[in-house]
């Protein structure tokens, strides 16, 4: 039995790797993608272009605006001296925001009144606008604290002391990049498995496979193993890149990470093979792969949190293995988690894996009788 499985596995590997193009598609994109997406995918803002509309000539306004100069987040685009220019700068996307200081800003500050600044933000991407606004608020808060201290103004009766756990600097790369392990592993595994049966059906060789002494379970195992091996290798490679190249801390237990990867691959391969067993043609197999991949990525919590989804859609995400593995990866990388915190993520993936593999096996058998 083992020999038969081994033989099938070798044959599957050959089928995947013998074609030069197919080999390239499997190896090159994950390497390129982890590098490109690792740099690209971030919610943090750098070099946000801003313009200043300063109607005030006082000293205080210059001291205040100097705070923006020193920041990596902002990049001074230019000064304007007319209301009408605001619209053209923002509409054309030249600047993300315009900071407007009225003529009485310095006077108000020196008379112990409140100086108001007006910020106009481009809300076409409202998330970027909100993040930009948050940066401004924190610069202003720092300025207020210093100003109150040096100018003997009354300080507020209470202040916030904020600490963020697991990611002190709140660098969103730390959140996104470990997620890419899960994302790319899923894509590769689904690619490898989802067409494997359909391809043989179309060529007619699947019927031949069915009349060999191999049982459906053996076929299932033989067809799963290449996905497992390729998935594990690629995930390992990506994890190494993340740790050594992107310097994301891997704080938790590595066995727990690989156990999570194992259950995740089980579920991904199960779904891939099920799609493959359902489809009669490769086109259908590919369609199925697409139809599974796209929603599972978008509704996984990879970029937008599951907690923000409506209840019904949240319930739907329980069927998505990527949802669980993203939690596993992020908890282990950043939170330093180990097995005890993650059982609630392992078993759903294992369950999805067992159910879908059984379904795939049954679909093979269904073709047999």
């Amino acid at each position: 039995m083992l020999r038969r499985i081994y033989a099938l596995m070798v044959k599957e590997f050959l089928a995947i790797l013998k074609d030069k193009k197919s080999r390239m598609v499997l190896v090159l994109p994950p390497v390129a993608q982890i590098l490109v997406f690792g740099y690209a995918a971030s919610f943090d803002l750098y070099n946000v272009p801003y313009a200043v509309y300063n109607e005030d000539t006082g000293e205080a306004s210059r001291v205040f605006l100097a705070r923006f100069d020193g920041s990596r987040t902002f990049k001074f685009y230019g000064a304007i001296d007319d209301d009408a220019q605001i619209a053209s700068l923002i509409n054309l996307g030249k600047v993300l925001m315009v900071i407007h200081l009225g003529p009485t800003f310095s006077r108000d500050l020196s008379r112990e009144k409140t100086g108001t600044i007006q910020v106009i933000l481009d809300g076409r991407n409202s998330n970027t606008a909100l993040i930009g606004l948050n940066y401004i608020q924190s610069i202003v808060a720092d300025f207020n604290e210093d100003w109150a201290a040096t100018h003997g103004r009354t300080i507020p009766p209470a202040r916030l002391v904020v600490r963020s756990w697991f990611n002190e600097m709140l660098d969103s790369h730390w959140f996104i990049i470990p997620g890419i392990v899960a994302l790319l592993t899923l894509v590769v595994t689904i690619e490898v498995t989802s067409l494997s049966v359909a391809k043989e059906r179309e060529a007619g060789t699947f019927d031949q496979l069915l009349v060999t002494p191999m049982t459906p379970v053996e076929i299932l195992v033989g067809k799963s193993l290449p996905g497992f091996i390729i998935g594990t290798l690629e995930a390992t490679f990506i994890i190494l890149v993340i740790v050594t190249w992107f310097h994301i801390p891997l704080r938790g237990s590595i066995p727990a990470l690989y156990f999570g990867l194992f259950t995740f691959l089980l579920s991904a391969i199960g779904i891939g093979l099920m799609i493959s067993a359902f489809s009669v043609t490769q086109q259908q197999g590919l369609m199925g792969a697409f139809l599974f991949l796209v929603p599972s990525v978008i509704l996984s919590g990879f970029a937008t949190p599951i907690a923000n989804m409506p209840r019904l859609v949240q319930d739907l995400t329980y069927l998505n293995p990527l949802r669980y593995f993203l939690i596993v990866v992020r908890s282990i990388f950043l939170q330093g988690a180990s097995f005890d915190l993650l059982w609630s993520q392992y078993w759903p993936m294992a369950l999805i894996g067992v159910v879908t593999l059984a379904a795939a096996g049954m679909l093979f058998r269904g073709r047999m009788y």
Partner: protein
Amino acid sequence: MTGEQPYGGHMRGISMMRLRGLVKKESYQIIRDPSSIGIAFVLPVVLLFIFGYGVSLDAQHVPMAMVIDKPDKAAFDFISGFGQSEYFSPVIMNNIQEAEKALMQRRIDGIVWLRGDFGRLLLSTGNAPIGVIVNGVDANQARITIGYVTGAWIKWLERFSMERGRPLNIPVNVDYRIWFNAAVRSRNFLVPGLIAVIMTLIGAMLTAMVIAREWERGTMEALMVSPVKIQEILLGKIIPYFVLGMGGMALSVAMAIFIFHVPLRGSFFALTIGSALFMLTAIFMGLLISQTAGSQFVAGQIAIVVTFLPAFMLSGFVFDIGSMPMVIQWLTHLVAARYFVSILQNIFLAGDIWPIFFSNCLWLVAMGTAFIVIIRKKARKRLE
């Protein structure tokens, strides 16, 4: 053009009769194989429906633990603001250890911790510390949560100072306006972006698979040895899929407006031109993929790799392109979805901003032209 033959009365060597025949053949193929129609019409509707509801960056009801070491009026007064806000769903916890454990287990996203001396410091020296701990794993959400907490704090400060007859006097106050999306609904920019991502998939999927199938089955060679010319074959494929794709696009726009209530501030004219240019570019890309791949298997793999993830990550759909490193910003110019995301976000939210519109269209035309040149070159090679 290869083998220009003097068929009289036809435009640029293209015979309308043969073209009509091909379009008819292609259309029958589409109608008889319901999967193409499914891809073009059902898929965008289903995907946009789920994603439109599912994808949001607006955090609400963030679970926060409230830990009060010494229950007194000052402390309860402070946290009452959290209970009234729609942004939080506060849970009272007895001690910090319990709250930290809950944070570790991801049951809550943050902690507000008022220590035993909060009330005393508040009334005597002032500047009483309010401990805030957030789970920083999701840095973006953590920032948003901190922003919410800061808002609640400022509101409380104002209330507290008013009650004591000393209006809050902070040096600088920020008054902000967010243009184009005053309510800061993330759906308003995510839905147009989603349309671009979904249409990228559909355009590539429709064509990439279908043509690879013809190569694989050898029917492409059969077509090629017939008197039909290469540009006719290509046009015959492009026209029906273009019509299908535009139909799907129209459905998506209708959904964005009527179901997700995204305002449409620009003109239908610009929307149509932009969509048509993008659809053509996407179809050309699909053609090129299928031609390069030769087999459906590889075509499918390439289509997944070059369409979905780049459209998702590098188009500016969620991640701001301006903040990416320079090299990556250059790379995004190769992603057609990038231009379409910008076109759609502008037309929906800002209106017809012609300079942005034209520069995006120009890029799309350039990409499309490059694709078609390569396709024709390759097609010629395969023919000989």
